């Protein structure tokens, strides 16, 4: 009786379940989102340039600044009216959100690597995410050109597919120290980092250069707060740190971190009576810093960046206006660098199409092409060193005006 009951049920339930399960597995193996592969519109071969960065979460604005710039460059190239003229292939854009997080970036990297039409990646945007994802990209020899991941360690891991169009923290930190010492003539500085991977490296480089310039340097780690989704600290730590800064008598405060934490800290500093110079890195280069801290507090703050504002006339003006049309907001931090990174890739693709044929471009070919490329972009002339870093370094300093507008002061 039991056996009959079992057999009857197996037939009735188990079979459809197994069939369904196999279908599901088979379906899932082809359901990874992939845009049109080779053989797209018309007879032109098509390739995808992907962007990886934070498109959601607390730092989404930085990611969106870059994403639209990449998309714009691709749209312009496809239209045939860009500086590259008519291209023998079609380009697709794919934007992936890694939330700036090293937990998410490996799976994003895998899905990009899996997607056979992806020929190059602009990004990942954040250093931590890049550290976690790069082995996957490297294993597949998929070129990644990052417009913003500035951690120096990234260029020393032996990843031949890694490229970066901005100077790393080892350039930015010392340049800032020199600016404070030589241009601002400030003798003592209090250095704070928000315990993020980015800030720790940057402030270490800053501090050691500042010491070698003879400045008095006090360093402290003040963790980013849960308030800003930047770490585990709580905002009650800022008044205490501010007190220490004030009593140290430092003439300047150098903050390594992002705009949200810096805004809260700046408010606490001014409330505690700090009269010195506020100085931060490009993580704070965002209007949200001004809105968070208030124009009164933010006024006079100096911010450094390996990124450059574009002259509003000349070749950049077309970029600025078309970006505004596409994105719905004005160009922001790293938009121009992302645009240049994409165009560098497109130039490499174009020359590969000329030598190898438009339908025979490979990822390895792109990596090789990028190694030897020279491209004159909006921000700089792009040429890569053998480890992927940009040849030549440049830092720029920005200042927050009394009404809250941020404008470039000049090179560091």
């Amino acid at each position, binding site marked *: 009786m039991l056996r009959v009951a*079992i057999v009857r049920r197996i037939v009735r339930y188990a079979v459809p379940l197994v069939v369904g399960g196999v279908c599901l597995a*088979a379906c899932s193996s082809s359901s990874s989102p992939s845009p049109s592969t080779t053989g797209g519109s018309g007879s032109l071969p098509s390739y995808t340039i992907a962007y990886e960065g934070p498109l959601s979460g607390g730092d989404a604005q930085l990611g969106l600044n870059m994403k639209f710039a990449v998309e714009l460059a691709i749209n312009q190239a496809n239209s045939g009216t860009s500086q590259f003229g008519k291209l023998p292939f079609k380009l697709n854009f794919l934007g992936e959100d890694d939330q700036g*997080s090293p937990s998410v970036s490996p*799976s994003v990297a*895998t899905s990009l690597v899996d997607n056979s039409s992806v020929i190059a990646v602009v990004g990942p945007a954040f250093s*931590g995410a890049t550290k*976690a994802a790069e*082995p996957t990209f490297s294993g597949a020899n998929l070129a990644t050109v990052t417009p913003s991941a500035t951690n120096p360690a990234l260029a020393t891991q032996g990843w031949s597919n890694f490229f970066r169009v901005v100077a790393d923290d080892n350039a930015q930190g010392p340049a800032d120290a020199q600016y404070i010492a030589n241009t601002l003539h400030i003798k003592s500085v209090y250095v704070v980092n928000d315990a993020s991977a980015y800030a720790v490296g940057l402030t270490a480089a800053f501090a050691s250069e500042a010491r070698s310039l003879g400045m008095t340097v006090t360093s402290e*780690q003040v963790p980013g707060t849960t308030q800003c989704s930047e770490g*585990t600290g709580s905002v009650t730590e800022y008044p205490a740190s501010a007190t220490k800064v004030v009593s140290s008598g430092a003439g300047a405060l150098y903050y390594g971190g992002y705009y949200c934490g810096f805004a809260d800290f700046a408010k606490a500093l001014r409330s505690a009576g700090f009269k010195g110079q506020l100085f931060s890195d490009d993580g704070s280069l965002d209007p949200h810093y001004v809105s968070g801290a208030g124009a009164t507090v933010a006024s006079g703050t100096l911010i450094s960046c390996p990124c450059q504002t574009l002259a509003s006339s000349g070749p950049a003006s077309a970029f600025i206006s078309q970006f505004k049309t596409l994105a719905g907001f004005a160009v922001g931090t790293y938009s121009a660098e992302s645009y240049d990174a994409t165009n560098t890739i497109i130039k490499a693709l174009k020359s590969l199409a000329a030598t190898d044929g438009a339908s025979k471009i490979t990822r390895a070919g792109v990596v090789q092409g990028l190694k030897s490329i020279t491209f004159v972009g909006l921000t700089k002339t792009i040429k890569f060193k053998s480890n992927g870093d940009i040849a030549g370094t440049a830092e720029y300093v920005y200042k927050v005006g009394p009404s809250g507008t941020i404008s470039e002061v000049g090179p560091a």
Partner: protein
Amino acid sequence: MSVHEGPSRLNRLRDSRDFRRLGACVFGMLVLALVTGPEGIQGNPTYGVIQSWLRPRVVGFLIAAVVLWALMTFWGRLSGRIRAEVVEVADVGRRLFESRLPRFGTYLLLIVLAVLLPQILSGTWQEITVDQIGTYVLLALGLNVVVGFAGLLDLGYIAFYLIGAYSTAYWSGALPVQPPFDLNPFFIIPFAVLAAMLTGVILGTPTLRLRGDYLAIVTLGFGEIIQIVATNLQGVTGGAEGVIGIRHFSVNLFGVRYAWPVGATANLPYYYLLLGFVVVALVIFHLLEHSRVGRAWTAIREDEVAAAACGINPLKYKIMAFAIGASTSGFAGVLFASKIGFIDPTEFSVQMSILVLILVVFGGQGSLAGALVGAAFIQWGQNFLRVLNVGWYNEQDLYVYLGGLLVVMMIFRPQGVLPSRRRSREIGLAEHGIGTADAMSAGETAP
């Protein structure tokens, strides 16, 4: 209506208990409508609420509420045949699994499936299977020993994961502090697992005397402390920048040489390593469950004072459970560190510990099958929804769903989806005032 008839059907329907159930169903469905509704807009707090509730879509949810209520209220009167069928299937299933042959046959079948299935998956899904599903299955199995078998609530479970990962980094020479000797990579696993286990014993010995609520908070505190220490001690752990360049796992022993690959092709080899350890863990935990140790855990769980009176040393067994859980977590950390090659301490927060807790509770505390299925299902589910990119699911809202799931589970099915029979009985008894169903209520240090 005659005065001799009982209350009319209408009046029976107005009975307050049914009404309350309807109210609960409507409330639940409205919450669901809000949760699956569009994201709010920064600066406009009522946008999300209006879009979720004041649009036609809410009608669907209200209808679903009524249907749910009807099902719950009239289940007793449902078609007898369907109910009889459901009961019979459950019964057949249970009788089937009681005899050895079908049981082992099923296990074998499952193992074969587990071995073959990933081969046909896409790269993305292979990666999800290892990093998301497999790792969390192992973590859930480990936490199940602590929460389910011994009844201790550990909210800092990920601390051991972190210790396993950092130990791997240490013995690979990736930390600023170098190891005293060069270790054959194969032995990194036992060394790291040992480190995690030791930490479990060190943390557990002073704290496991505490009552359940307090233990939970202390473990939470420890989890936070370990994460902060890892982030701050730059000279030892690399600090907030994390550790990069951890050696990938390899075997070089007795002539057997194999190096696990790097990058996208690493998924399958790591998967099989993970699968091997999951199977070993399942076997060990199953044997433990039915051994003296398991019975001691059950005794402590059900009534600690009585267990102590029978000569069981509760502290010793609690520490054992804690250490076993810690070593499982540590092992998962080792795999993670060697596969990704990079550790960022800021990513291992309390939230991850809570996620593992949710997986165990959902599946069924104290039940191996439950922990396995619960972890696999939720992890598969959330990744499935994420990859598929359905309109209503926003992956940032994951914890809204999981948090709500926890509350609902506790109200309607605290024993979990696939509970162990013993646990269901314990919870049922506890609800009637007999025994305690967990190591939380009794304790000599209760204030």
